[in-house]
């Protein structure tokens, strides 16, 4: 019988956990894990490598692999060369090179692909053999390592993995224990590659989805993609939108002296095709013709950096556009606050946590309609990512009309009230409960 005090023992297989972070996934996993632990889950959170100098905390309480058994949350570092699930197979070799430096945060390394880091790509290719020929074989060997590293694996009630790179490990664990598997899909290979999936990655992703008893999709958009592109039946896929931690940032409004009275438009994402920075750059060119004092700040690193810089030169707006590369978390909050408007022009975005962070910082938000977060935000402006003219139109409006920016800033905070990890955690616990007790899944 299910009792109200029952707790679920969860083996959670993740790739990131803030501050061990390459993208939004680490922030999301931390938020979700915190909510689950506060409710009814005892979680062993498995990560590929936990650097010695990183403290993992929830609400200021540190957890390490050293505090064992009695804790509701334990971390287990399984040594691996894997870093970000957002990497494509082709860029993995570069990433393993970068991650090779001892005693540093591998995830952060992958984000520092700003110009000053370019030289690293030529270093230390010799170590590749030690860690596996390529990404895909590393994923397989990681699965084996997880099984070997987790003690008493048969004691867990639920196996919950995040995205495709941990899917083989989760499938192995399920085969070994017969316990129900939840695959949490934050992004599909289809989306990451803007429709050009690596067949081998796609196959591993698909195998995970097929083996999973329940798939959690971060949006209706992603659910539909899993149905359409992976042929998974819709009834097995439940949508749990992401949330954002309610904590207010500690930083006061930042002095805008750097830009004097200029207004800042902020982009914050990896500079990859999926994130649509190029559309914002085209819109910037149009906005600047009407509001020449505007500055465009692109925060983030990625393979499109050079292209974007070249394009801004071609458009003759390079003096209005700044590429900062990757910024650490505290500076990201400052960027949100300095900005007059935040733009997420993603071509495909399974969810998209950054608009929620912008809203938390009081910044008006423009998002593409092709984003999962669009399903939970009402008091934001929405555009089709390809509609550069409409993006420019809305940017001009927010920059020009203070009353619009003010209404958006105030009202979008109301949207956040319906989006909390506590509410979302409750939904995931409900899924655990139904899986453990073998009930039919009914879930709204």
């Amino acid at each position, binding site marked *: 019988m299910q009792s109200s005090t029952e707790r679920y023992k969860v083996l959670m297989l993740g790739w990131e956990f803030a501050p061990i972070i390459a993208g939004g996934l680490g922030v999301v996993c931390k938020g979700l894990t915190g909510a689950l632990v506060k409710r009814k889950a005892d979680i062993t959170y498995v990560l590929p490598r936990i650097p010695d100098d990183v403290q993992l905390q929830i609400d200021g309480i540190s957890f390490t692999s050293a505090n064992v058994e009695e804790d509701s949350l334990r971390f287990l570092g399984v040594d691996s060369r894997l870093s970000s699930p957002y990497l494509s197979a082709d860029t993995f070799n570069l990433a393993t090179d970068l991650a090779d430096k001892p005693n540093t945060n591998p995830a952060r390394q992958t984000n520092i692909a700003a110009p000053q880091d370019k030289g690293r790509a030529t270093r230390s290719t010799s170590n590749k053999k030690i860690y596996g020929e390529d990404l895909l074989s590393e994923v397989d060997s990681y699965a084996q390592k997880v099984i070997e590293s987790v003690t008493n694996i048969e004691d867990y009630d639920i196996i919950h993995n995040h995205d495709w790179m941990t899917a083989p490990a989760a499938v192995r664990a399920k085969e070994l224990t017969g316990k129900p598997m939840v695959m949490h899909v934050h992004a599909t290979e289809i989306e990451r590659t803007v429709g050009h999936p690596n067949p081998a990655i796609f196959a591993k992703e698909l195998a995970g989805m097929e083996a999973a008893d329940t798939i959690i999709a971060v949006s209706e958009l992603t659910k539909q993609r899993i149905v359409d592109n992976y042929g998974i039946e819709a009834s097995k896929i439940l949508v749990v939108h992401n949330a954002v931690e309610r904590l207010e940032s500690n930083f006061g409004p930042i002095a805008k002296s750097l830009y004097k009275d200029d207004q800042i438009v902020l982009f914050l994402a990896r500079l990859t095709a999926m994130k649509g920075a190029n559309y914002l750059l085209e819109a910037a060119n149009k906005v600047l013709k009407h509001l020449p004092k505007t500055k465009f700040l692109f925060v983030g690193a990625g393979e499109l950096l050079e292209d974007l810089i070249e394009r801004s030169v071609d458009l003759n707006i390079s003096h209005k556009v700044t590429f900062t590369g990757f910024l650490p978390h505290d500076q990201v909050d400052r960027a949100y606050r300095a900005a007059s408007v935040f733009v997420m022009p993603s071509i495909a975005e399974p969810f998209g946590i950054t608009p929620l962070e912008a809203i938390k910082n009081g910044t008006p938000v423009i998002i593409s309609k092709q984003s999962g977060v669009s399903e939970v935000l009402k008091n934001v402006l*929405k555009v089709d990512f390809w509609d550069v003219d409409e993006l420019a139109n809305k940017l001009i409006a927010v920059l020009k009309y203070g*009353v619009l920016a003010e209404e958006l800033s105030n009202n979008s905070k109301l949207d956040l009230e319906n989006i909390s990890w506590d509410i979302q955690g409750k939904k995931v616990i409900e899924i655990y409960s139904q899986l453990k007790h073998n009930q039919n899944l009914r879930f709204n």
Partner: protein
Amino acid sequence: MHSSSPSDKAICLYLHAHQPYRLSKVNYLDLGSVRDYFQGPTNDTNQVILEKVSKKSYLPTNKLLVKLLKKLPELRISLSISGTLLEQLQTYEPKVLASFQELVATGQVEILSETYYHSLAAIYSVEEFCIQVEQHRNLIKKLFDYDTTSFRNTELIYNDRIASLVNQLGFQTVLAEGWDKYLTWRNSGFVYKAQLPELESKELQTLKGYRIQKPVPSELKLLLKHYKLSDDIAFRFSNQDWAEYPLSAEKYLSWVNTNPGNLINLFMDYETFGEHQWADSGIFKFLEAMIFQASDTGIQFKTISEAARQGATDTVSVPELTSWADAERDLSAWNGNKMQQAALRLTYAIESKLSKLVNVKPETKLSGLYNIWRKLQTSDHFYYMSTKYWADGDVHKYFSPYDSPYEAFINFMNVLEDFTQQVDYIAAKNV
């Protein structure tokens, strides 16, 4: 068949028909090359919506009402039609206009005056208010050969000051919401007198130029909407969660008969019939049955003016602005947030720019500009910007052609900016 003891109750059914000129989708980048502000969000949306509403509501409602008016010589109905709707009917749906004319030709229908552009001019500009009332009254005279004597302001927006404006224009009766806040112990079942505060002499001078009759009537009769019985039809009729669903004519008339006071003021949108409440909800059958059964049981029907002829029981003062909208019955649906306030302020700021132009350019040459400015004053544009209940996706959203109040604001401001630039350009040329 009439009942042996005639009822002392009288139903005063007043219907209001209106369609705005929805704005074209205008991108800021296209400013300076916008050709038509009033196509609607996609080409011809206004025409398409008008055709849809005509088919679903205006035509079947008028057909039913004409039939009832002809069968029941004692039946009376009051109506008002905004200038923006009448214009569009003339252009796109002349047969609908003809069906309204047929109604009025029965002699059993009263037409009320209002602002031509369904605007908030009463609040923002006395002169503009006068002009729009006159323009509307002239159009009613032209299309229906009818002289109005009663007035309803846009969305029943009302306070004592507006009553004074209406009185000074020479109207005899005005409508308002029967809102408990200022009715206190009184109820809408009686005729009241409006409180008429003094106006400034400059305003009086302006109003005098537009007076419909001399002298100014000594009092202004006030008829108050019975919001419960009105909204039972207008809002709740097809709501299956409503405890009284389904609403029968018998049940409804039993409420009419037990209502305190002898007047039952049922004021509602024309589009209630067939558009807000769809035909398959049984709304037309209900209306027909209700009118026939009311007639059978001796309940009378009165136009607004006929109802107002009975003596007023008391004077009602409404110091604050009220309307018939939303639970608040205030103006917050149109000016509740800062976007709306800014848009209204900038819209009415154009008045002085235009009047300066009148000094240097013959007014006839400016009629196009005035026409555009007035269409921009239509209250619907500001209603679409309302963020009240927006997140709940309620009635505001149903009526809006925009995806969000923010989109409504952005598009309106782009149109207004383009128009302002146009006015400024002409002004610069004519200095």
